[in-house]
């Protein structure tokens, strides 16, 4: 390893700094990436002690620099150019002692986004610390929740271009070792250039299966992540992403919310049951409405049937066209709201939802009953705690509605059974997706009660 070979790795990139130093009667070289290191720390904790190294052969300088004369928290020897490059991009200063070796000192810049409150998974009660983009900050946040020495972090790097730092997290003695080894095997087998976006991580880790249902659970909440680890799951932290992933995932996990742990178990269990109801309504309400309105009118109670017929008298479209168009409009409205700044997004929702909706009803373009069915289904979709799961439900809602329009309740039932078959075939780290309900028990619907307090 020479000065030239190290410089060649980074070429003439603007932020690569190479510095020649005189030390102990020899010429040594220091390398760093501007912006990734704290200059003051590098000066005080690396260059200053280096300048005080006593004269002697290069090997003794190297040994002294590695063994503590340079008083730095971390001093790692670097065997080759690849290790040097890896250390530099992770905020280290590398000092090359020509002919003896190279030592990397950690002088990372403290500049990073501070820990803030969760923005998506809000709860009224409970901790307010959310993950940041820095994996080391995230590991420290988890340590603060789980101070057990059995907490393990296995570090690795993935992405040939992005060299993204990953940390597999588990609790020794609690997590099934097979789950850990399955995840580690998958990560080791990753053959990808980049691991930059959540989709990259999710598709690469789960093997990009053709399903809209999430096969790993993400959370921005450290307490939820810690709870996941305590329930025997494996965690994955990815540098650059302000969220942690939990595996395996099943339907039961996707329907739980951190809020469940912030209230008594009776209320939490009731709300969880309500959430399952919301899932069914979100999936099936528009489809059932179409099926009843187009095929099975006799199933609608007479006063309601009359009211629906009256509201539909002057609407020029069929029920199926009306509901499908409303579903599409609802999706567009949601999409527009996401891509706009928060304040504008709210205005779009109000204008789109209330103003356009009521104007369309008044103009007899849509019937109020169809609008209520679609809106209720959309609101129920928002009640689902996992956004990925909610999006999958949105997709299936369309499918069921089309089946309802073609084949009534028969089509909706066939579609629902097909979805259940699809879900039953899914696995996450070889754990079945419907595992909590496989034995027919409904205990997963309720939040488990904490140990009874002695009276």
């Amino acid at each position, binding site marked *: 390893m020479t000065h030239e070979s190290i410089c060649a790795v980074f070429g003439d990139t603007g932020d690569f700094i190479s510095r020649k130093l005189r030390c102990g009667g020899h010429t040594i070289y220091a390398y760093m990436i501007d912006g990734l290191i704290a200059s003051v720390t590098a000066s005080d904790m690396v260059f200053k002690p280096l300048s005080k190294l006593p004269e002697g052969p290069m090997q003794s300088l190297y040994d002294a620099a590695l063994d503590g004369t340079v008083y730095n928290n971390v001093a790692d020897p670097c065997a080759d150019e690849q290790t040097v490059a890896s250390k530099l991009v992770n905020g280290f200063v590398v000092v090359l002692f020509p002919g003896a070796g190279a030592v990397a000192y950690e002088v990372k810049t403290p500049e990073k986004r501070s820990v803030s409150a969760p923005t998506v998974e809000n709860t009224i009660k409970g901790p307010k610390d959310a993950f940041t983009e820095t994996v080391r900050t995230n590991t420290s946040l988890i340590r603060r929740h789980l101070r057990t020495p059995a907490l393990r972090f296995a570090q690795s790097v993935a992405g040939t271009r992005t060299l993204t730092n990953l940390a597999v997290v588990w609790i020794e003695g609690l997590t099934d070792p097979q789950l850990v080894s399955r995840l580690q095997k998958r990560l080791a087998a990753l053959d990808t250039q980049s691991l930059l976006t959540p989709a990259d991580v999710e598709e690469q880790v789960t093997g990009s299966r053709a399903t809209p249902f999430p096969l790993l659970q993400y959370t921005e909440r450290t307490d939820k992540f810690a709870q996941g680890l305590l329930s025997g799951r494996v965690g994955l932290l990815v540098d650059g992403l302000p969220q942690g992933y939990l595996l395996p995932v099943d339907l039961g996990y996707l329907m739980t919310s951190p809020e469940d742990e912030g209230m008594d178990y009776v209320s939490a269990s009731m709300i969880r049951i309500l959430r399952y109801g919301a899932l069914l309504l979100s999936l099936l309400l528009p489809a059932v409405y179409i099926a009843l*309105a187009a*095929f099975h009118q006799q199933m609608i109670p*007479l006063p309601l049937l009359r009211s629906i*017929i009256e509201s539909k008298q002057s609407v020029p479209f069929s*029920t199926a066209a009306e509901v499908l168009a409303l579903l599409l409009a609802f999706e567009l409205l949601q999409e527009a709201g996401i891509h706009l700044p928060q304040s504008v997004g709210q205005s779009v929702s109000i204008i789109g939802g209330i103003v356009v909706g009521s104007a369309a009803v008044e103009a007899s373009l849509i019937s109020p009953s169809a609008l209520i069915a679609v809106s209720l289904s959309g609101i129920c979709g928002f009640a689902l705690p996992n956004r990925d799961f909610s999006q999958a439900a949105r997709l299936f809602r369309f499918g069921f509605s089309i089946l309802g329009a073609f084949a009534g309740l028969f089509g909706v039932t*066939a579609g629902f059974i097909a979805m259940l078959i699809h879900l039953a075939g899914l696995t996450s780290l070889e754990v079945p997706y419907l595992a909590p309900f496989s034995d027919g028990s409904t205990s997963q619907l309720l939040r488990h009660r904490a140990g009874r307090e002695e009276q």
Partner: protein
Amino acid sequence: MKKWLYPAAVLAAIALLSRLPHPSRDISRLEPVQAVYLYMEAGELHIETDTGDHGSGHDLTEATDDMKESSDGEIFLETAEFLILDPQVPITPDFYELLRPDCRVFFTTEKPDLPAAAKYLSIHTPKTTLAHLRAQTS
């Protein structure tokens, strides 16, 4: 194997859908009926509904078809809650196919004002259903 399985499943589904026994009819075209009145006049069976539709014929099927043809909308008898019967009307198996088994049956010799009768019967519900009637006659 999977390559041909999916198209085959889609084809099977389409074939199945096309053979469904119930055709779709949009709800907005329906004219739901709450009360049906059947009576005999000049040797013919007459049918009247609370929606104001009327038909006649030699038997129930003929009378119903006549009523459906003369109606502006699509008469929907499956919502009928009350069947008001002239005791002279012969009860045939057609009745049980036309109306719901839970349809309440009320006998009268006088011609009723059907909307008012439906309102009255929904408060003073007759106990006899079409299913009871069927059990008695069979």
